[in-house]
């Protein structure tokens, strides 16, 4: 049986305001996670109240800064340091900042776009061979993401 789950797309700049509202309503911060996309990162902030699961979602590029929510939820600092160390994203105003030393990794930011390979989606059926060749060469995908350094 699948649990009903809500995913709410938000803007990056709305994050702190919405999270403060959820804190005031009595939501528990369950987790913060990040997913590497082809050219960006997708962040999920998960909350729970009375076993109702809710996610806030937004997408950022490598250069964009994210505001920390550790002032609102004190336990957020671990997730934020994790995202900083593994994905290389910059998170501003963390209450506890490990400055990149929370994770000891063989390579820096192992989950970043440069190091992480995003699998190619399956090709549509009935596609002609010459078109397939074109589909494989995705101009948006950086060269580094096709060939991981590891």
């Amino acid at each position: 049986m699948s649990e009903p789950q809500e995913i709410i797309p938000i803007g990056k700049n709305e994050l702190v305001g919405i999270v403060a509202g959820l804190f005031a309503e009595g939501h528990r911060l369950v987790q913060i996670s990040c997913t590497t996309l082809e050219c960006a990162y997708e962040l999920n902030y998960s909350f729970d109240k009375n076993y109702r699961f809710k996610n806030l979602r937004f997408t950022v590029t490598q250069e964009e800064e994210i505001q920390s929510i550790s002032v609102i939820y004190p336990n957020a600092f671990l997730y934020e340091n994790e995202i900083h160390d593994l994905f290389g994203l910059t998170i501003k105003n963390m209450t506890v900042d490990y400055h990149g030393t929370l994770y000891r990794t063989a390579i820096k930011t192992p989950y970043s776009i440069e190091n992480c390979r995003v699998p190619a989606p399956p090709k549509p059926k009935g596609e002609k061979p010459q078109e397939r060749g074109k589909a494989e060469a995705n101009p948006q995908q950086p060269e580094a993401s096709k060939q991981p350094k590891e």
Partner: protein
Amino acid sequence: MAHRNIIPLGPQHPVLLEPIHFDLVTEDETVVDAVPSISYVHRGLERLVEKRDFNDFVHVADRICGLCSIQHAMGYCQAVEAVMGIEVPERALYLRTIWAELGRIHSHIFWLGVAADGFGYESLFMQSMRLREVVLDIIEETTGARIIFGVCKVGGVRRDIDPETLKGIVQRLTTLGVDLEELTAVFINDYGIKHRLEGVGFISKEDAYTLGCVGPLARASGFDTDMRTIGYAAYPHLDVEPMLEQSGDCYGRCLVRIREIFQSIDLIRQAAGKIPEGPIDVKVKGTPNGEYFSRVEQPRGEVIHYVKGNGSKFLQRFRVRVPTFTNIPAMIKIMKGSQVADIPNIIITLDPCISCTER
């Protein structure tokens, strides 16, 4: 103001079975701050989804941790099944539940042993480990392995348990329950243990909630959280009540785990009585295209397996949020204000699982 010292604790320490480090900032004998350090053995298992297809990856999920093996495999499979819309046969859900509760019993009895060793009760440690063998034998007979279950797969389970064996398991667990009552009476009533645990390592219900605590740590403070009540696997058909204590101290956490062992024995008895006949798996067609956050109750609390696929046989993202990771901020809170001599007991009763944390 007293002079401040920093006492390093870990990554190797008698009460730490796995590597985690704390810098304890002390004033005289009081800890005023604690700075945790993790990732001594981080494995980066989440990125193996790039090299193992979604079916094979169950074996990786199974091996994230020895004490929570079945819950990791189950959580991962549930997530993939939810994405792909797979209806798992009811018998397979019951079998998963039975194995999950066996895993909880063996983890909690192992914790009793480790705790006894930490308190200096050597014979109690040996007795705990002796009783744990009963559960490990059952796991070995039904799955073929003692620690890593390896029975879950996307779409069901790999092995069945016949009715006679199930009956035998319930009988053996009933006998184990009698032995455990004798063993746990020492943990509950012994003056020395109570003296060292009562009123030590306190965290209030409000702090437990705000800091995102899960599992026995949260329930010992009266925070009602147990993912089994959301109704995954066969739990909707079983009587599951979160085991709550109100004291919020080390002793409360000890009591919660003891009561959960007996609850798990009862859940297995219920499941063995209700398990339906039928197939144990379904054929899996297609590839995952979508995403899902699967929530499962491990022995240490809520674990989240996030799966995202784009139709390829390799997943785009697999993420595990383990209970120990989310309990670290509460560990820091509990340590602040505690006596240095109490820190080992506090860490033991928090039951950190670094193998999960270093996924």
